[in-house]
Protein backbone atom coordinates (compact mmCIF):
# COMPACT_ATOMS: atom_id res chain seq x y z
CA UNK A 1 0.00 0.00 0.00
CA UNK A 2 1.34 3.40 -1.02
CA UNK A 3 2.24 6.02 1.55
CA UNK A 4 0.62 9.40 1.80
CA UNK A 5 3.02 12.24 2.60
CA UNK A 6 1.57 15.69 3.25
CA UNK A 7 3.70 18.80 3.04
CA UNK A 8 2.43 21.57 5.20
CA UNK A 9 3.33 24.87 6.81
CA UNK A 10 1.50 27.06 9.24
CA UNK A 11 2.03 30.22 7.22
CA UNK A 12 2.05 30.73 3.46
CA UNK A 13 5.03 31.18 1.20
CA UNK A 14 7.37 28.86 3.09
CA UNK A 15 8.18 26.85 -0.02
CA UNK A 16 5.66 23.99 0.23
CA UNK A 17 4.99 23.79 -3.49
CA UNK A 18 8.64 23.91 -4.49
CA UNK A 19 9.55 21.36 -1.85
CA UNK A 20 6.71 19.02 -2.79
CA UNK A 21 7.57 19.11 -6.48
CA UNK A 22 11.26 18.51 -5.82
CA UNK A 23 10.62 15.68 -3.34
CA UNK A 24 8.25 14.01 -5.80
CA UNK A 25 10.76 14.36 -8.63
CA UNK A 26 13.60 12.95 -6.53
CA UNK A 27 11.46 10.06 -5.37
CA UNK A 28 10.37 9.18 -8.89
CA UNK A 29 13.73 9.76 -10.54
CA UNK A 30 16.40 8.72 -8.07
CA UNK A 31 14.49 6.13 -6.09
CA UNK A 32 12.51 4.96 -9.15
CA UNK A 33 9.22 4.96 -7.27
CA UNK A 34 5.70 5.40 -8.62
CA UNK A 35 4.70 8.82 -7.40
CA UNK A 36 1.60 11.00 -7.38
CA UNK A 37 1.40 14.69 -6.49
CA UNK A 38 -1.89 16.27 -5.49
CA UNK A 39 -2.48 19.98 -5.26
CA UNK A 40 -5.03 20.36 -2.48
CA UNK A 41 -4.38 24.08 -2.27
CA UNK A 42 -7.63 24.60 -4.11
CA UNK A 43 -7.85 28.25 -3.09
CA UNK A 44 -4.49 29.20 -4.52
CA UNK A 45 -3.05 26.39 -6.63
CA UNK A 46 0.54 26.68 -7.73
CA UNK A 47 2.46 23.44 -8.07
CA UNK A 48 1.35 22.79 -11.68
CA UNK A 49 3.67 25.61 -12.84
CA UNK A 50 6.67 23.68 -11.56
CA UNK A 51 5.68 20.77 -13.78
CA UNK A 52 5.26 23.02 -16.79
CA UNK A 53 1.49 23.02 -16.89
CA UNK A 54 -0.51 26.12 -17.79
CA UNK A 55 -4.16 26.95 -18.39
CA UNK A 56 -4.01 25.65 -21.96
CA UNK A 57 -2.26 22.38 -21.25
CA UNK A 58 -4.32 21.63 -18.16
CA UNK A 59 -7.13 19.18 -18.79
CA UNK A 60 -9.49 17.96 -16.12
CA UNK A 61 -8.75 19.06 -12.58
CA UNK A 62 -9.31 17.95 -9.02
CA UNK A 63 -12.26 20.37 -8.93
CA UNK A 64 -14.01 18.36 -11.67
CA UNK A 65 -13.59 15.21 -9.62
CA UNK A 66 -14.75 16.85 -6.38
CA UNK A 67 -17.98 18.03 -8.02
CA UNK A 68 -18.65 14.64 -9.50
CA UNK A 69 -17.85 15.51 -13.12
CA UNK A 70 -15.23 12.84 -13.68
CA UNK A 71 -13.27 10.01 -12.13
CA UNK A 72 -10.08 10.83 -10.28
CA UNK A 73 -8.06 8.72 -12.70
CA UNK A 74 -8.98 11.12 -15.53
CA UNK A 75 -7.44 14.04 -13.65
CA UNK A 76 -3.98 12.49 -13.28
CA UNK A 77 -1.59 14.21 -15.67
CA UNK A 78 1.34 12.03 -16.66
CA UNK A 79 4.42 14.17 -16.11
CA UNK A 80 6.78 11.51 -17.44
CA UNK A 81 5.00 11.45 -20.80
CA UNK A 82 5.02 15.21 -21.19
CA UNK A 83 8.55 15.97 -19.98
CA UNK A 84 10.26 18.93 -21.65
CA UNK A 85 13.10 18.55 -24.10
CA UNK A 86 15.45 20.61 -21.98
CA UNK A 87 15.84 21.88 -18.42
CA UNK A 88 15.81 19.88 -15.21
CA UNK A 89 12.36 18.48 -15.98
CA UNK A 90 13.62 16.67 -19.06
CA UNK A 91 15.10 14.07 -16.70
CA UNK A 92 11.58 13.03 -15.73
CA UNK A 93 10.87 11.61 -19.19
CA UNK A 94 9.52 8.08 -18.86
CA UNK A 95 9.28 8.23 -15.08
CA UNK A 96 6.19 7.19 -13.16
CA UNK A 97 5.05 10.55 -11.94
CA UNK A 98 1.53 11.94 -12.02
CA UNK A 99 0.19 15.32 -11.08
CA UNK A 100 -3.38 15.92 -9.94
CA UNK A 101 -3.75 19.67 -10.43
CA UNK A 102 -6.31 22.05 -9.02
CA UNK A 103 -8.23 24.33 -11.32
CA UNK A 104 -6.81 27.76 -11.93
CA UNK A 105 -10.05 29.10 -13.39
CA UNK A 106 -11.45 31.91 -11.28
CA UNK A 107 -15.03 30.64 -11.44
CA UNK A 108 -14.09 27.17 -10.26
CA UNK A 109 -11.98 28.53 -7.44
CA UNK A 110 -14.72 30.80 -6.23
CA UNK A 111 -17.17 27.89 -6.24
CA UNK A 112 -14.88 26.02 -3.83
CA UNK A 113 -14.65 29.08 -1.64
CA UNK A 114 -18.42 29.58 -1.70
CA UNK A 115 -19.74 26.06 -1.44
CA UNK A 116 -16.86 24.05 -0.06
CA UNK A 117 -16.74 20.40 -1.04
CA UNK A 118 -17.06 17.00 0.47
CA UNK A 119 -13.75 16.15 2.10
CA UNK A 120 -14.88 12.55 2.31
CA UNK A 121 -14.89 12.49 -1.47
CA UNK A 122 -11.37 13.92 -1.54
CA UNK A 123 -10.29 11.13 0.75
CA UNK A 124 -11.92 8.48 -1.44
CA UNK A 125 -10.32 9.96 -4.53
CA UNK A 126 -6.85 9.82 -3.05
CA UNK A 127 -7.27 6.22 -1.94
CA UNK A 128 -8.53 5.27 -5.41
CA UNK A 129 -5.62 7.02 -7.01
CA UNK A 130 -3.11 5.09 -4.94
CA UNK A 131 -4.60 1.76 -5.91
CA UNK A 132 -5.36 2.59 -9.59
CA UNK A 133 -1.91 3.98 -10.32
CA UNK A 134 -0.23 1.55 -7.92
CA UNK A 135 1.53 4.45 -6.26
CA UNK A 136 4.36 3.99 -3.82
CA UNK A 137 4.04 7.58 -2.67
CA UNK A 138 1.37 10.21 -2.86
CA UNK A 139 2.60 13.70 -2.01
CA UNK A 140 0.03 16.29 -1.00
CA UNK A 141 0.77 19.98 -1.41
CA UNK A 142 -1.50 21.79 1.00
CA UNK A 143 -2.97 25.19 1.66
CA UNK A 144 -1.24 26.96 4.54
CA UNK A 145 -2.95 27.10 7.90
CA UNK A 146 -5.32 24.51 9.31
CA UNK A 147 -8.56 24.56 7.36
CA UNK A 148 -10.74 21.49 6.86
CA UNK A 149 -9.09 20.03 3.78
CA UNK A 150 -5.69 20.49 5.35
CA UNK A 151 -6.85 18.77 8.52
CA UNK A 152 -8.10 15.95 6.34
CA UNK A 153 -4.85 15.56 4.49
CA UNK A 154 -2.99 15.50 7.80
CA UNK A 155 -5.44 12.94 9.16
CA UNK A 156 -4.92 10.52 6.30
CA UNK A 157 -1.16 10.94 6.07
CA UNK A 158 1.38 8.30 6.91
CA UNK A 159 3.96 11.04 7.17
CA UNK A 160 3.65 14.76 7.60
CA UNK A 161 6.47 17.08 6.61
CA UNK A 162 6.16 20.49 8.25
CA UNK A 163 8.16 23.30 6.73
CA UNK A 164 9.13 26.30 8.80
CA UNK A 165 11.27 29.34 8.33
CA UNK A 166 13.73 30.18 11.07
CA UNK A 167 11.61 32.77 12.83
CA UNK A 168 9.45 33.19 15.87
CA UNK A 169 6.06 33.19 14.12
CA UNK A 170 6.69 29.93 12.30
CA UNK A 171 8.07 28.39 15.47
CA UNK A 172 4.84 29.13 17.31
CA UNK A 173 2.58 28.07 14.45
CA UNK A 174 4.44 24.82 13.96
CA UNK A 175 3.83 23.91 17.60
CA UNK A 176 0.07 23.93 17.01
CA UNK A 177 0.41 21.89 13.81
CA UNK A 178 2.55 19.34 15.64
CA UNK A 179 -0.10 19.04 18.36
CA UNK A 180 -2.80 18.50 15.76
CA UNK A 181 -0.76 15.86 13.94
CA UNK A 182 -0.17 13.99 17.20
CA UNK A 183 -3.85 14.26 18.09
CA UNK A 184 -4.69 12.75 14.69
CA UNK A 185 -2.19 9.90 15.26
CA UNK A 186 0.07 10.70 12.33
CA UNK A 187 2.74 8.05 12.64
CA UNK A 188 5.67 9.98 11.21
CA UNK A 189 6.34 13.61 11.80
CA UNK A 190 9.22 15.24 9.92
CA UNK A 191 10.44 18.82 9.96
CA UNK A 192 12.29 20.93 7.46
CA UNK A 193 13.62 24.49 7.60
CA UNK A 194 13.52 26.53 4.40
CA UNK A 195 14.78 30.01 3.52
CA UNK A 196 17.58 29.89 6.09
CA UNK A 197 19.94 32.81 5.47
CA UNK A 198 23.37 31.18 5.02
CA UNK A 199 25.82 31.84 7.86
CA UNK A 200 23.38 34.00 9.75
CA UNK A 201 22.59 31.73 12.65
CA UNK A 202 24.13 28.85 14.46
CA UNK A 203 22.07 26.20 12.72
CA UNK A 204 23.38 23.36 14.84
CA UNK A 205 21.89 25.12 17.83
CA UNK A 206 18.68 25.82 15.91
CA UNK A 207 18.30 22.14 15.02
CA UNK A 208 18.72 21.10 18.66
CA UNK A 209 16.14 23.65 19.72
CA UNK A 210 13.61 22.58 17.11
CA UNK A 211 13.98 18.87 17.74
CA UNK A 212 13.71 19.38 21.47
CA UNK A 213 10.61 21.55 21.16
CA UNK A 214 8.69 19.27 18.77
CA UNK A 215 10.16 15.83 19.46
CA UNK A 216 10.54 15.23 15.74
CA UNK A 217 13.58 15.05 13.45
CA UNK A 218 14.69 18.11 11.50
CA UNK A 219 15.53 16.45 8.20
CA UNK A 220 17.07 19.37 6.31
CA UNK A 221 17.95 23.04 6.51
CA UNK A 222 17.43 24.53 3.05
CA UNK A 223 19.08 27.88 2.42
CA UNK A 224 17.49 31.04 1.18
CA UNK A 225 18.20 30.67 -2.48
CA UNK A 226 18.03 33.57 -4.88
CA UNK A 227 18.52 31.29 -7.87
CA UNK A 228 15.42 29.41 -6.86
CA UNK A 229 13.44 32.60 -6.40
CA UNK A 230 14.78 33.74 -9.75
CA UNK A 231 13.71 30.51 -11.40
CA UNK A 232 10.20 31.84 -10.64
CA UNK A 233 8.93 28.29 -10.08
CA UNK A 234 9.52 27.40 -13.72
CA UNK A 235 11.60 24.28 -13.20
CA UNK A 236 12.33 21.59 -10.64
CA UNK A 237 15.31 23.23 -9.01
CA UNK A 238 17.04 20.14 -7.63
CA UNK A 239 17.02 18.55 -11.08
CA UNK A 240 18.32 21.66 -12.81
CA UNK A 241 20.95 22.44 -10.12
CA UNK A 242 21.80 19.18 -8.35
CA UNK A 243 25.02 20.52 -6.83
CA UNK A 244 23.43 23.51 -5.12
CA UNK A 245 23.30 23.44 -1.33
CA UNK A 246 19.50 23.73 -1.50
CA UNK A 247 19.33 20.56 -3.60
CA UNK A 248 21.74 18.70 -1.36
CA UNK A 249 19.65 19.47 1.70
CA UNK A 250 16.47 18.61 -0.18
CA UNK A 251 17.85 15.17 -0.97
CA UNK A 252 18.38 14.63 2.76
CA UNK A 253 14.70 15.34 3.32
CA UNK A 254 13.81 12.96 0.48
CA UNK A 255 15.99 10.27 2.04
CA UNK A 256 14.25 10.75 5.40
CA UNK A 257 10.87 10.31 3.72
CA UNK A 258 12.01 7.19 1.88
CA UNK A 259 13.20 5.79 5.21
CA UNK A 260 9.73 6.07 6.75
CA UNK A 261 8.36 2.62 7.48
Amino acid sequence: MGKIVSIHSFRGGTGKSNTTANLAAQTALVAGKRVGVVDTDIQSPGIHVLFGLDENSMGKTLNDYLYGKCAIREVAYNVGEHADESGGRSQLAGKNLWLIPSSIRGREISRVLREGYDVGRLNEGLQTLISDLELDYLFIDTHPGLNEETLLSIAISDALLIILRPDQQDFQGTAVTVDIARSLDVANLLLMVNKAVPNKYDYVHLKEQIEKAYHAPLTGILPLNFDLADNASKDIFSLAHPDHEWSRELRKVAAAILAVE
Partner: protein
Amino acid sequence: MSDEIIRLKKAFMFQGLPEDVLAALAQKVNRRALTQGETLFNTGDEGDALYIIDEGWVKVTRQDEKGDELLLNRCGPGETIGEMSLLDQEPRSANVVALSDAHVMELHRDGFFELLDQRPDVAMGLIRSMSSRLRFSGMYFQKMGEWSRKIAEGDYSFMEQIQPLTGGDSNSDEEKASQMLSAFFLMVKGVKEREESLKRQVETLTLAIDEKKRRQEFEELTQTEFYTKLKIQAHELRQKRLDNKS
Protein backbone atom coordinates in the same frame (compact mmCIF):
# COMPACT_ATOMS: atom_id res chain seq x y z
CA MET B 1 81.64 53.72 -26.73
CA SER B 2 80.17 50.23 -26.74
CA ASP B 3 76.56 49.54 -25.73
CA GLU B 4 77.79 47.67 -22.70
CA ILE B 5 79.70 50.66 -21.43
CA ILE B 6 76.73 52.97 -21.94
CA ARG B 7 74.61 50.59 -19.92
CA LEU B 8 77.13 50.28 -17.12
CA LYS B 9 77.39 54.05 -16.94
CA LYS B 10 73.72 54.24 -15.95
CA ALA B 11 74.27 52.07 -12.88
CA PHE B 12 74.26 54.15 -9.69
CA MET B 13 77.02 52.01 -8.25
CA PHE B 14 79.41 52.80 -11.13
CA GLN B 15 78.72 56.49 -11.43
CA GLY B 16 81.86 58.53 -11.98
CA LEU B 17 83.99 55.60 -13.11
CA PRO B 18 86.33 56.43 -16.00
CA GLU B 19 85.65 54.76 -19.29
CA ASP B 20 88.66 52.44 -19.24
CA VAL B 21 87.46 50.93 -15.95
CA LEU B 22 83.99 50.50 -17.38
CA ALA B 23 85.47 48.87 -20.46
CA ALA B 24 87.35 46.39 -18.25
CA LEU B 25 84.18 45.77 -16.25
CA ALA B 26 82.17 45.20 -19.42
CA GLN B 27 84.30 42.10 -20.01
CA LYS B 28 83.13 40.66 -16.71
CA VAL B 29 79.36 41.14 -16.86
CA ASN B 30 76.77 38.99 -18.59
CA ARG B 31 73.56 40.58 -19.77
CA ARG B 32 70.55 38.41 -18.92
CA ALA B 33 66.97 38.74 -20.11
CA LEU B 34 64.07 38.09 -17.71
CA THR B 35 60.51 37.62 -18.83
CA GLN B 36 57.70 38.98 -16.72
CA GLY B 37 57.11 36.76 -13.70
CA GLU B 38 60.47 35.02 -14.00
CA THR B 39 62.35 34.46 -10.73
CA LEU B 40 65.90 35.79 -10.56
CA PHE B 41 66.58 34.12 -7.23
CA ASN B 42 64.80 32.78 -4.18
CA THR B 43 65.30 33.16 -0.44
CA GLY B 44 67.88 30.63 0.73
CA ASP B 45 69.64 30.26 -2.65
CA GLU B 46 73.43 30.44 -2.71
CA GLY B 47 74.42 33.91 -3.87
CA ASP B 48 77.53 34.26 -5.98
CA ALA B 49 76.60 37.22 -8.17
CA LEU B 50 75.02 40.64 -7.97
CA TYR B 51 72.75 42.18 -10.57
CA ILE B 52 72.42 45.65 -11.96
CA ILE B 53 69.03 46.37 -13.46
CA ASP B 54 69.37 47.68 -16.96
CA GLU B 55 65.76 47.76 -18.10
CA GLY B 56 62.43 46.91 -16.48
CA TRP B 57 61.32 46.38 -12.88
CA VAL B 58 61.64 43.65 -10.29
CA LYS B 59 60.00 43.10 -6.94
CA VAL B 60 61.78 42.01 -3.78
CA THR B 61 59.57 39.84 -1.58
CA ARG B 62 59.50 37.41 1.29
CA GLN B 63 56.97 34.77 2.13
CA ASP B 64 55.52 34.14 5.57
CA GLU B 65 54.95 30.58 6.71
CA LYS B 66 51.42 30.60 5.27
CA GLY B 67 52.86 31.46 1.87
CA ASP B 68 51.49 35.00 1.86
CA GLU B 69 53.78 37.40 0.13
CA LEU B 70 55.25 40.42 1.86
CA LEU B 71 56.45 43.01 -0.63
CA LEU B 72 59.73 44.51 0.58
CA ASN B 73 60.75 46.70 -2.32
CA ARG B 74 60.48 47.41 -5.98
CA CYS B 75 63.65 48.16 -7.96
CA GLY B 76 64.20 49.60 -11.42
CA PRO B 77 66.88 50.74 -13.89
CA GLY B 78 70.26 51.63 -12.40
CA GLU B 79 69.66 49.87 -9.08
CA THR B 80 71.79 47.02 -7.75
CA ILE B 81 70.34 43.89 -6.18
CA GLY B 82 71.87 40.83 -4.63
CA GLU B 83 75.03 42.47 -3.35
CA MET B 84 74.34 41.51 0.26
CA SER B 85 75.02 37.81 -0.23
CA LEU B 86 78.33 38.66 -1.86
CA LEU B 87 79.38 40.79 1.07
CA ASP B 88 78.29 38.64 3.99
CA GLN B 89 78.44 35.24 2.20
CA GLU B 90 75.02 34.30 3.54
CA PRO B 91 72.28 32.81 1.36
CA ARG B 92 69.80 35.09 -0.40
CA SER B 93 67.57 36.93 2.06
CA ALA B 94 64.61 37.56 -0.27
CA ASN B 95 62.98 36.51 -3.54
CA VAL B 96 63.43 38.63 -6.64
CA VAL B 97 60.88 38.30 -9.44
CA ALA B 98 60.57 40.32 -12.64
CA LEU B 99 57.53 42.61 -12.63
CA SER B 100 57.94 43.28 -16.34
CA ASP B 101 60.16 41.92 -19.06
CA ALA B 102 63.57 43.06 -17.89
CA HIS B 103 67.31 42.96 -18.52
CA VAL B 104 69.90 42.64 -15.80
CA MET B 105 73.69 42.66 -15.85
CA GLU B 106 75.22 39.88 -13.80
CA LEU B 107 78.55 40.41 -12.05
CA HIS B 108 80.15 37.40 -10.32
CA ARG B 109 81.87 37.41 -6.98
CA ASP B 110 85.48 37.46 -8.30
CA GLY B 111 84.89 40.30 -10.70
CA PHE B 112 83.13 42.25 -8.00
CA PHE B 113 85.89 41.92 -5.43
CA GLU B 114 88.55 42.67 -8.02
CA LEU B 115 86.73 45.89 -8.79
CA LEU B 116 86.41 46.79 -5.11
CA ASP B 117 90.16 46.28 -4.66
CA GLN B 118 90.97 48.62 -7.49
CA ARG B 119 88.34 51.29 -7.00
CA PRO B 120 87.53 52.63 -3.55
CA ASP B 121 85.00 54.99 -5.18
CA VAL B 122 82.92 51.93 -6.21
CA ALA B 123 82.94 50.83 -2.60
CA MET B 124 81.77 54.31 -1.61
CA GLY B 125 78.98 54.20 -4.18
CA LEU B 126 77.91 50.83 -2.87
CA ILE B 127 77.89 52.04 0.71
CA ARG B 128 75.81 55.05 -0.36
CA SER B 129 73.21 52.89 -2.03
CA MET B 130 73.09 50.52 0.93
CA SER B 131 72.65 53.45 3.29
CA SER B 132 69.71 54.65 1.32
CA ARG B 133 68.23 51.12 1.39
CA LEU B 134 68.70 51.08 5.16
CA ARG B 135 66.92 54.39 5.46
CA PHE B 136 64.08 52.97 3.45
CA SER B 137 63.99 49.90 5.69
CA GLY B 138 63.83 52.21 8.69
CA MET B 139 60.81 53.95 7.23
CA TYR B 140 59.29 50.63 6.26
CA PHE B 141 59.47 49.28 9.80
CA GLN B 142 58.29 52.57 11.28
CA LYS B 143 55.17 52.38 9.09
CA MET B 144 54.67 48.78 9.90
CA GLY B 145 54.79 49.50 13.62
CA GLU B 146 52.49 52.50 13.28
CA TRP B 147 49.88 50.58 11.29
CA SER B 148 50.07 47.49 13.46
CA ARG B 149 49.33 49.67 16.47
CA LYS B 150 46.34 51.22 14.68
CA ILE B 151 45.02 47.80 13.78
CA ALA B 152 45.43 46.66 17.38
CA GLU B 153 43.22 49.64 18.28
CA GLY B 154 40.70 48.59 15.65
CA ASP B 155 41.38 51.57 13.40
CA TYR B 156 41.52 50.61 9.72
CA SER B 157 40.87 54.09 8.36
CA PHE B 158 44.50 54.63 7.26
CA MET B 159 43.98 52.10 4.48
CA GLU B 160 41.77 54.44 2.55
CA GLN B 161 44.58 56.98 2.38
CA ILE B 162 47.16 54.77 0.71
CA GLN B 163 48.05 56.41 -2.62
CA PRO B 164 49.14 54.44 -5.66
CA LEU B 165 52.76 55.03 -6.65
CA THR B 166 53.27 57.59 -9.38
CA GLY B 167 56.51 55.93 -10.47
CA GLY B 168 59.97 57.41 -10.96
CA ASP B 169 61.86 59.16 -8.21
CA SER B 170 59.13 61.56 -7.19
CA ASN B 171 57.91 59.20 -4.46
CA SER B 172 59.23 59.72 -0.96
CA ASP B 173 60.44 56.76 1.09
CA GLU B 174 57.29 57.10 3.15
CA GLU B 175 54.98 56.88 0.13
CA LYS B 176 56.95 53.98 -1.21
CA ALA B 177 56.93 52.08 2.09
CA SER B 178 53.17 52.67 2.43
CA GLN B 179 52.61 51.21 -0.99
CA MET B 180 54.78 48.18 -0.33
CA LEU B 181 53.00 47.47 2.94
CA SER B 182 49.49 48.05 1.67
CA ALA B 183 49.05 44.58 0.22
CA PHE B 184 50.07 43.05 3.52
CA PHE B 185 47.72 45.21 5.54
CA LEU B 186 44.86 44.62 3.13
CA MET B 187 45.39 40.95 3.80
CA VAL B 188 45.24 41.62 7.55
CA LYS B 189 41.98 43.48 6.97
CA GLY B 190 40.67 40.50 4.99
CA VAL B 191 41.51 38.18 7.88
CA LYS B 192 39.60 40.46 10.24
CA GLU B 193 36.58 40.48 7.97
CA ARG B 194 36.63 36.70 7.69
CA GLU B 195 36.75 36.45 11.45
CA GLU B 196 33.82 38.77 11.78
CA SER B 197 31.74 36.80 9.35
CA LEU B 198 32.54 33.67 11.34
CA LYS B 199 31.45 35.45 14.47
CA ARG B 200 28.20 36.42 12.76
CA GLN B 201 27.66 32.76 12.00
CA VAL B 202 27.53 31.82 15.63
CA GLU B 203 24.73 34.27 16.33
CA THR B 204 22.09 32.18 18.04
CA LEU B 205 18.41 32.41 17.32
CA THR B 206 16.44 31.66 20.43
CA LEU B 207 12.87 30.70 19.78
CA ALA B 208 10.19 30.54 22.39
CA ILE B 209 6.74 29.04 22.31
CA ASP B 210 3.85 30.77 24.04
CA GLU B 211 2.31 27.67 25.59
CA LYS B 212 -0.94 29.35 26.57
CA LYS B 213 -1.56 30.54 23.05
CA ARG B 214 -0.61 27.12 21.75
CA ARG B 215 -3.22 25.39 23.95
CA GLN B 216 -5.88 27.93 23.06
CA GLU B 217 -5.38 27.50 19.34
CA PHE B 218 -5.33 23.74 19.65
CA GLU B 219 -8.61 23.78 21.54
CA GLU B 220 -10.28 26.10 19.07
CA LEU B 221 -9.33 23.80 16.23
CA THR B 222 -10.25 20.53 17.88
CA GLN B 223 -13.53 21.43 19.61
CA THR B 224 -15.53 21.35 16.41
CA GLU B 225 -17.90 18.72 15.14
CA PHE B 226 -15.81 18.40 12.00
CA TYR B 227 -12.70 17.59 13.97
CA THR B 228 -14.38 15.00 16.16
CA LYS B 229 -15.71 13.22 13.06
CA LEU B 230 -12.39 13.52 11.30
CA LYS B 231 -10.59 11.89 14.19
CA ILE B 232 -12.94 8.93 14.11
CA GLN B 233 -12.71 8.67 10.31
CA ALA B 234 -8.96 8.84 10.41
CA HIS B 235 -8.83 6.13 13.02
CA GLU B 236 -11.10 3.86 10.98
CA LEU B 237 -9.10 4.51 7.85
CA ARG B 238 -5.83 3.58 9.49
CA GLN B 239 -7.40 0.47 10.93
CA LYS B 240 -8.62 -0.52 7.46
CA ARG B 241 -5.21 0.00 5.94
CA LEU B 242 -3.62 -2.04 8.68
CA ASP B 243 -6.12 -4.86 8.03
CA ASN B 244 -5.33 -4.67 4.29
CA LYS B 245 -1.66 -5.11 4.98
CA SER B 246 -2.01 -8.15 7.21
